[in-house]
């Protein structure tokens, strides 16, 4: 008695029908299963853009398969063009998937511990083939995704697509916006260099202010894992970045897209009567079928975008160079939050931390979430929504202004002597001195005022810039302002460069001095990425 019997049906078929017909039949069977309903001839027909048979076999994968079960079988011709979607929702989805794939690559080389995270990043750049280009792509696509998602939101706002019946679609979209921003923000911390630590510290500084004090303190502990960022905070942000937020995003996207399809893509506002929604009723002659037209387009978009992103990351774009290792004790001058949170930093400069850092942004976010339930005007037409559209434009302008106010150019008080030195030797990026050709830093001591007599153009430029920024040190309180750059030979291939600002305090005639030194190695390679 056999314990089990091996039965390979195809062998029976081969016996019955002969080798070729049996294999052919098997092939048809496999293709039909993989495509969830299309046999090889159907696939060929799709590729050739032949007219579909009747009944249309190209609808089966939507009905039978998982991957296309939410994708509509056809779209209204009026929403298939560039207008009205500008493909922005599609692009958001593309970038989301792109981030997951590049992110998995980066995960392989990364350990979320302050002891090794920074070293891992250096290892990724110096010891992993394609490591740098992967980091650049992940970073580039993350920034683009934020932009695209915001534009997508703006377009659904402008075309009035958030209005009844799509209110909930909008609300899930706001959740997706939040997920996108926090995902990007949590990723910021992971390289564990000065830039990442301090940008995230500024972004997270609000939670501490939550009143009453017990709540603020404990929420801060929850977020950072300790009073300040350290091993626990890094682990938390890592887990948010690679597990919690992607999961939340995938679920929210499922709901979002389900709702989009459920209601149908909204037609251009002028195409319908006011108060009507005909998105689901697509006349036969306006249908654009997913297969083959939209499928082909999406495939070619994907291959083009991947090629463009890869090329851009390889030749044009560099993720911000790694700054020195994170140091909780040293706050670099002029650190800013990531650009998409600059508006928050700007709000913080307006006034009280609790009011402007918590209550106002909280209210704004809440307002955004429930916007479609508050703004219930029936018409989606541009002409009927002058107030709404103007309010939208004003909000965008306000965000731009606030973001500007978030930058160090606005309302930051530091001493002008430090400012003058930071002009050449900034603490948040390499800056002109570090990026200058090392060979041109001729040993010697140079007066900024006598910049034109420096031995070469590089030094002249640096001294000239120094001299210009020194004018800001001159004030009714300070006279006799002078600057020197001293370049010393320090070690083999290592120079020490000191920037010194001196002045006389008018009040008591005493001398003031500020200086800062930097050591520069021949192979430092600043300003060239990595």
């Amino acid at each position, binding site marked *: 008695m056999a314990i089990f019997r091996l039965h390979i049906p195809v062998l029976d078929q081969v016996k019955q029908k002969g080798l070729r017909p049996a294999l052919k039949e098997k092939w048809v069977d496999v293709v039909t299963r993989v495509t969830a309903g299309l046999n090889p001839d159907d696939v060929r027909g799709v590729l050739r853009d032949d007219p579909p048979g009747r009944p249309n076999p190209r609808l089966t994968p939507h009905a039978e398969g998982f991957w296309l079960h939410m994708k509509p079988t056809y779209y209204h011709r009026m929403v298939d063009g560039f207008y009205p979607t500008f493909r922005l929702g599609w692009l958001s989805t593309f970038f989301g998937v792109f981030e997951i794939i590049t992110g998995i690559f980066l995960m392989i080389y990364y350990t979320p511990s302050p002891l090794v995270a920074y070293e891992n990043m250096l290892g990724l750049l110096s010891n992993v083939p*394609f490591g740098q280009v992967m980091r650049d792509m992940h970073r580039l696509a993350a920034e683009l995704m934020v932009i695209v998602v915001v534009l997508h939101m703006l377009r659904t706002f402008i075309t009035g697509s958030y209005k009844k019946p799509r209110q909930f679609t909008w609300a899930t979209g706001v959740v997706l916006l939040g997920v996108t921003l926090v995902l990007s923000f949590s990723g910021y911390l992971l390289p564990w260099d000065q830039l990442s630590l301090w940008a995230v510290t500024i972004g997270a500084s609000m939670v501490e202010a939550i009143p009453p004090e017990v709540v603020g303190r404990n929420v801060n502990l929850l977020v950072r894992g300790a009073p300040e960022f350290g091993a626990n905070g890094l682990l938390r942000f890592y887990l948010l970045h690679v597990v919690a937020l992607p999961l939340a995003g995938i679920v929210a996207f499922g709901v979002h897209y389900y709702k989009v399809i459920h209601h149908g893509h909204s037609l251009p506002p002028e195409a319908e009567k006011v108060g009507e929604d005909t998105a689901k009723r697509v006349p036969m002659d306006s249908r654009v079928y997913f297969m083959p037209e939209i499928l082909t387009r999406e495939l070619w978009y994907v291959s083009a975008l991947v090629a463009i992103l890869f090329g851009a990351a390889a030749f044009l774009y560099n993720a911000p160079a790694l700054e020195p290792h994170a140091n909780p004790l040293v706050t670099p001058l002029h650190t800013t939050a990531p650009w998409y949170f600059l508006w928050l930093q700007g709000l913080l400069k307006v006034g009280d931390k609790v009011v402007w850092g918590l209550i106002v942004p909280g209210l704004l976010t809440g307002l955004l979430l429930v916007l479609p339930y508050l703004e219930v005007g029936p018409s989606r037409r541009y002409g009927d929504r002058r107030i709404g559209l103007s309010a939208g434009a004003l909000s965008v302008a306000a965000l731009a202004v606030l973001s500007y106010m978030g930058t160090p150019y606005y309302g930051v008080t530091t001493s002008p002597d430090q400012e003058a030195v930071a002009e050449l030797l900034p603490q948040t990026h390499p800056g002109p001195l570090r990026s200058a050709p090392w060979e041109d830093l001729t040993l010697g001591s140079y007066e900024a005022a006598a910049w034109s007599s420096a031995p070469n153009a590089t030094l002249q430029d640096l001294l000239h810039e120094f001299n210009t920024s020194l004018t800001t040190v001159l004030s009714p309180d300070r006279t006799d302002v002078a600057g020197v750059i001293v370049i010393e030979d320090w*070690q083999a291939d290592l120079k020490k460069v000191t920037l010194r600002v001196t002045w006389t305090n008018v009040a008591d005639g005493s001398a003031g001095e500020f200086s800062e030194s930097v050591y520069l190695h021949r192979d430092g390679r600043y300003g060239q990425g990595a």
Partner: protein
Amino acid sequence: MKAQIALGMLAFLALIGVLVVVAIGEPERMAEVTRAFEARQIETGASLFEANCRPCHGPQGQGIQAVAPALNAPDLFDGSRLAAVGFGGTLPDYVRGVVAAGRPVPSAGTNYPQRMPAWGQEYGGPLRSDQVDALVAYVLNWEARALAGGGAPPTPSGPTVGADITVALPPGDAQRGKALSEGGLGCSGCHILAPVGPAWLASGTEPGIGTRAEQRFQAAGYSGKADSAEQYLFESVVAPNAYIEPGYQANIMPLNFADRLSSQDMADLIAYMLSLK
């Protein structure tokens, strides 16, 4: 649609092309990033050395006699020091070990008044392991110049000033005194602003060393033999333990300057210190 299929294929080929171009460049790129990383380590090490090690090992690692050995010296790199200590590993391991863990027990044949402190956090010191690595990279970068003989501190030639503070000194040059104090003698490492010895520059209500010298030798509690500001400074350098500044410890300031300075050096140093009011 045909156009789209063609464009899609083209984009795919372009992607492969970019991939190949990048792949060809990768070994060179990775080597370059590695070099840049090592260069940055040395830069970081230099500023850490300035902040932490200079008071004992001197501004350029020439060492300070009777305080700490030279690190910028050929015997560290030609293997003779490792052999003398009986260390069987590599030089980077040796330097890393000493910097991270310090030297709780003086090595045989040395008699430094202070111990080499432990710097690594894993030994209770203040520095992270990547910072210790940076210091090691910086110390090792002295190799070429040390072996070429550039690193040895200049030994004084001719007669030295001695410990008698009443001898007449030649006229001093404050400018040269400043240079001396910032050079291999290591004075400025402990004195200019650093907290190891009394600051020379005026700070807060405390006057500079020049003014202090004029007041100190007449003040109550002064235990030395000086009768003038010049003699006070002379004594403080050649016999630091004759009078210990309140708040500081004996035996930190090197005790052998009497045998290292010429009369001219001493006069120049005094002139410089007196100029710091």
